[in-house]
């Protein structure tokens, strides 16, 4: 393993020191591993909390700021944070209008956020609601399983709900909005290589030079199937067709097309993939109205990409376009 770090056990803590030094617009509670918007709590605004394992940067801390999240709890690499972190953050971002937990659907995250909500309910009178983000069509959606993973949908959910929260909307309305964005979003990812978790020090899975994984997660989970390496024009449909089969993306006012790098795949390739994906959407009658191309929800040093489509209506588009000032997304301010 070749990585820029000291002891793998200290990676997250030391990285947070750098975040604090580099970005005065964030406040860092090192003991609890919570990152806050510098001016949290914002009085009268619903507080938005997310978080999860580290290793997905710029998610999650890159989306803290005006127009998006108020705080984020950072776990160990690929490990959900613990309830104490979330309940502490919940207290500190409550501006009097309650706190919405935006939870990426993983067993660990859901359980830890549940326990945090129980703790918060026992200790404070902060009203807490939670919305689970689950957009990954690689995973069968079933009542008997852990359900779909939360991946790229977190970006439009957090962005759009963040904009609505700045408008002063209430907790229940925001929770409904979050579910609406999530319900209109689907994602699918692929890997050219495995990532290497620092504490393990070797790649999570072995992938021969002539094979790729389709339907991978963002934690080095292997995919649903392994196929021979293929040109981009053959890979794009493997990602896009399942999205189109799962939700009717022609019925909205247009879609956000989000092509995400898993970490090591450069923009040059992502943009080429974007062209392939746009061509498929053209043929399907789906109209891209906004785009996002780059490393937003990564999986350490994994090479590969994921595609996320969000069906917009007029309101979602307006909220997407509203000003935002975070490290990962910034416009209008």
């Amino acid at each position, binding site marked *: 393993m070749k990585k820029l770090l000291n002891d793998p056990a200290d990676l997250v803590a030391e990285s947070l020191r750098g975040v604090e030094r580099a970005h005065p617009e964030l406040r860092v509670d090192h003991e609890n591993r919570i990152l806050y918007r510098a001016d949290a709590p914002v009085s009268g605004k619903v507080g938005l909390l997310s978080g999860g394992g580290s290793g997905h940067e710029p998610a999650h801390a890159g989306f803290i700021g005006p127009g998006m999240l108020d705080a984020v709890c950072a776990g*160990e690499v690929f490990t959900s*944070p*613990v309830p104490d972190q979330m309940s502490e953050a919940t207290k500190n971002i409550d501006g009097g209008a309650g706190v919405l937990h935006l939870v990426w659907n993983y067993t660990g995250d859901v359980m830890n956020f549940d326990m945090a909500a129980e703790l918060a309910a026992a200790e404070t009178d902060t009203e807490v609601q939670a919305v689970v983000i689950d957009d990954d069509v690689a995973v069968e959606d079933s009542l008997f399983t852990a359900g779909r993973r939360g991946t790229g949908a977190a970006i439009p959910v957090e962005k759009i709900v963040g904009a609505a929260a700045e408008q002063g909307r209430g907790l229940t309305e925001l929770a409904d909005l979050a579910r609406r964005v999530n319900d209109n979003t689907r994602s699918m990812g692929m890997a050219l290589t495995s990532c290497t978790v620092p504490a*393990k020090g070797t790649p*999570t899975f072995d992938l021969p030079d002539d094979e790729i994984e389709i339907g991978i997660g963002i934690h080095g989970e292997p995919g649903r199937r392994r196929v021979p390496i293929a040109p981009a024009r053959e890979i794009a449909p493997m990602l896009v067709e399942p999205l189109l089969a799962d939700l009717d993306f022609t019925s909205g006012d247009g879609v956000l097309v989000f092509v995400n790098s898993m970490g090591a795949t450069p923009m040059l390739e992502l943009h080429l993939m974007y062209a392939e994906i746009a061509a498929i959407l053209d043929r399907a009658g789906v109209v891209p109205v906004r785009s996002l191309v780059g490393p937003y929800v990564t999986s350490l040093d994994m090479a590969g990409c994921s595609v996320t489509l969000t069906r917009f209506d007029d309101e979602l588009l307006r909220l997407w376009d509203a000003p935002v000032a975070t490290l990962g997304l910034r416009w209008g301010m």
Partner: protein
Amino acid sequence: MPGDAVDTAALQRWLRTFAASVAEQRDHLTALDAAIGDADHGANMHRGMSAVVAALDTAPATDPAALFKQAGMTLVKSVGGASGPLYGTLFLRMAPATGGAASLDPETFAKALRAGLEGVVARGKAELGDKTMVDALAPALDALDAALAAGEPLADALRAASAAADEGRDATVPLVARKGRASYLGERSAGHQDPGATSTALLVAAAATGLVEQDDSS
């Protein structure tokens, strides 16, 4: 069998033994998790059990309920992921089941463990056969109850429980996961041993070897 009473010192031995075997099996647990999960189960359990041992060293609880609560809270606070809330809940739910006694008879200990299992199921919603830690824990407790009901001494009952946990762990290999991260793999999860069932088998084995003072008469 009064020699079978489980006191705070015995429970501490159990936890320390479990921590030691997790430390020893850390890479194995992580390798199992790499195959069908995210390659952190060994690190997670090791972080958690090291914290539990550290708590025992600095502020040892003085009765079983306090000890379970301390272990459970420590795990919930330090582990995260799926195993943190699950193992944490297991111990947290054992605490009230002790009725505040300073020393537990085998039946009470078994009842507490079952309360823990129920907590795990309530928290994680896994059923037997979902390819999770429940697949090791549930058969272990059934074996424990049966052995105690048959009048076996605790040491023997725990050995039976440990054997059942190992069997349950092994039985996870062919299963298709329906809960936890391995469920994302669908059919591809078959053919791999569940990491959580593996650590749970270590927990039960630690009871068999650590809980009851090993002496020649046992």
